[in-house]
């Protein structure tokens, strides 16, 4: 073992302390995405419709877009003052901004100030996350022995997916405890507020950590970089590796990740119209089954090299995404199915809305189909009290419940996509750490990572939804639901070619230089 690396017990402590903090940062970051539709309803006017979703996704995406700037700011700090204090700071920023999102009043109370405030807090979240991951990955890698670097850093990689798991779990638990109405009204704030407890625990754990041995050695020898940004991006030798890391590995990794987890959930809920609970538990099960594969592929990359494991994950995504999403559509389709007559239930209620005196008629229907799917439709018609007022559009909400067999096929198909994620994401921390020297590692690896994940990956739901909207016509108002996949397919395909031609498969033994 390298003299500067750490013993087995100690590395376990390093991994636990780093992982818990990173897990919580991911949790904070993801609850916004998981609650995007609901937040949109509170932040924007009630009649904003689809544009509220697109604008909320744009705020969601803004958090991703600023991640590269966070990588620059905190990466530089990490290379100047050390890894430990930098990612302690990012944790505090993330926790405080998440807590504050839970306190922001809605559009009804403060108008457009609400989305502006949330946007600012979301930007702070993005900056903090931009500084967090590079620090945690570098910190663990600099403690790990050369022949186990992929294995040890893959534990950090699990946190991104487990953060999503935790966020979905807390959301479902809160919703089940409060009920739909209370959750939609105020309960969605609770997962944001809970974050503060998790962050305080994590800060306590991280305060006890020691600085990385590689950085300490450099600091003692007076060899740390005085200008990490300049050395990372103004020196051709290093900058060309930053570009290679971005175009040959992380941009493809980013889209594989966000397609497999976020686009899948958004597609199942918004396009297939699967109900809130099932669309989330499908992802929860798939994550639970697939997460150990991060460790498996991380460990395999120590033996067989990082390159081909990551590129195989990308290629599989390119080849199979369209068939997988087509299957989602076919399995959840009820238009071609025969309705079981006699099983339908209709419930109608009329009430006078408080304040406006409008007449609100709500019709709930429940239909059962031969393929086992149950479709619940809630139709809300509003008749204004003032006759001269324009009659608002009828609001229709459709929710499908899958039968058990189909439900498990959905889980299997999401699992397959997350397995691709584990292939590209399990080895990536070790790959990036080995590409850059210690004195500018935090800065150099953070920027391509966050452009790849924050920009290319983070924009998958937003750009996917946007591309689908291009295909909407009067004859086909829903558009081509599979069109959004062309974006991740194009990016992952390009990245696969660049990676296959330009990347080396050999492992760098010495990351202490």
């Amino acid at each position: 073992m390298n003299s500067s690396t750490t013993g087995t017990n100690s590395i376990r402590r390093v991994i636990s302390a780093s992982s818990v903090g990173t897990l919580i940062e991911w949790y904070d970051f993801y609850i916004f995405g998981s609650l995007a539709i609901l937040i949109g309803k509170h932040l924007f006017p009630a009649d904003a419709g689809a544009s509220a979703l697109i604008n909320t996704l744009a705020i969601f995406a803004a958090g991703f877009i600023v991640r590269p700037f966070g990588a620059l700011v905190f990466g530089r700090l990490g290379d100047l003052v050390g890894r430990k204090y930098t990612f302690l700071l990012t944790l505090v920023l993330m926790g405080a901004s998440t807590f504050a999102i839970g306190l922001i009043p809605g559009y009804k109370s403060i108008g457009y100030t609400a989305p502006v405030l949330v946007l600012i807090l979301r930007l702070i979240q993005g900056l903090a996350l931009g500084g967090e991951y590079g620090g945690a990955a570098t910190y663990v890698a600099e403690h790990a022995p050369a022949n186990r670097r992929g294995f040890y850093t893959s534990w950090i990689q699990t946190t991104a997916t487990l953060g999503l798991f935790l966020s979905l779990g807390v959301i479902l638990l809160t919703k089940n405890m409060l009920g739909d109405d209370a959750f939609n009204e105020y309960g969605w704030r609770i997962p944001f507020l809970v974050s503060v407890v998790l962050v305080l625990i994590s800060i306590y754990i991280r305060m006890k950590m020691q600085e990385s041995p590689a950085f300490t050695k450099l600091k003692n020898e007076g060899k740390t970089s005085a200008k990490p940004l300049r050395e990372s991006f103004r020196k051709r030798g290093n900058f060309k590796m930053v570009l290679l890391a971005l175009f040959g590995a992380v941009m493809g990794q980013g889209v594989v990740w966000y397609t497999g987890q976020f686009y899948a959930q958004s597609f199942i809920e918004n396009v297939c119209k699967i109900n809130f609970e099932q669309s989330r538990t499908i992802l929860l099960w798939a994550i639970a089954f697939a997460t150990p594969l991060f460790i498996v592929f991380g460990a395999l990359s120590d033996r067989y090299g990082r390159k081909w494991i990551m590129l195989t994950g990308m290629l599989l995504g390119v080849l199979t995404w369209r068939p997988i999403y087509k299957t989602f559509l076919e399995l959840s389709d009820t238009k071609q199915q025969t309705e079981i007559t006699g099983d339908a239930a209709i419930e109608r209620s009329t009430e006078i809305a408080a304040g406006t005196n409008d007449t609100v008629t709500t019709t709930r229907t429940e239909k059962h189909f031969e393929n086992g799917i149950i479709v619940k439709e809630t139709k809300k018609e509003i008749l204004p009290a003032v006759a001269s007022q324009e009659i608002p559009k009828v609001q229709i909400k459709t929710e499908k419940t899958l039968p058990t067999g189909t439900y498990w096929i959905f889980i299997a198909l999401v699992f397959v996509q997350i397995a691709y994620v584990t292939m590209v994401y399990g080895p990536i921390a070790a790959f990036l750490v080995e590409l850059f020297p210690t004195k500018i590692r935090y800065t150099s690896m953070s920027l391509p990572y966050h452009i790849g994940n924050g920009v290319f990956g983070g924009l998958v739901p937003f750009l996917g939804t946007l591309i689908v909207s291009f295909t909407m016509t009067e004859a086909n108002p829903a558009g081509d639901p599979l069109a959004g996949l062309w974006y991740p397919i194009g990016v992952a395909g390009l990245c696969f070619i660049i990676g296959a031609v330009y990347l080396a498969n050999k492992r760098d033994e010495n990351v202490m230089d």
Partner: protein
Amino acid sequence: MNNIKKALGVLWFLLGPALVALMIWQALDKIGKAAEGAARQNTTLQWGIILFIFIPICIGMMIFGWYALRGEYTKLPGKSEELED
């Protein structure tokens, strides 16, 4: 293999401006087709964000292509000192 790396450099170098042109063309097309008012504002904002983010990345792709064309990737550095130039 090294010749393929260099030859593909031309493709990456040209891909950057080609993607910028494609995005600008799409932006003008979609903004033009959007209905007057809030819909056009939203479309302009969305495309503004897309161009703001992706134009620097396309420039990065051009630089990557230029390095590939010059043979910078024919041998990847094995030690940190080789990144110093």
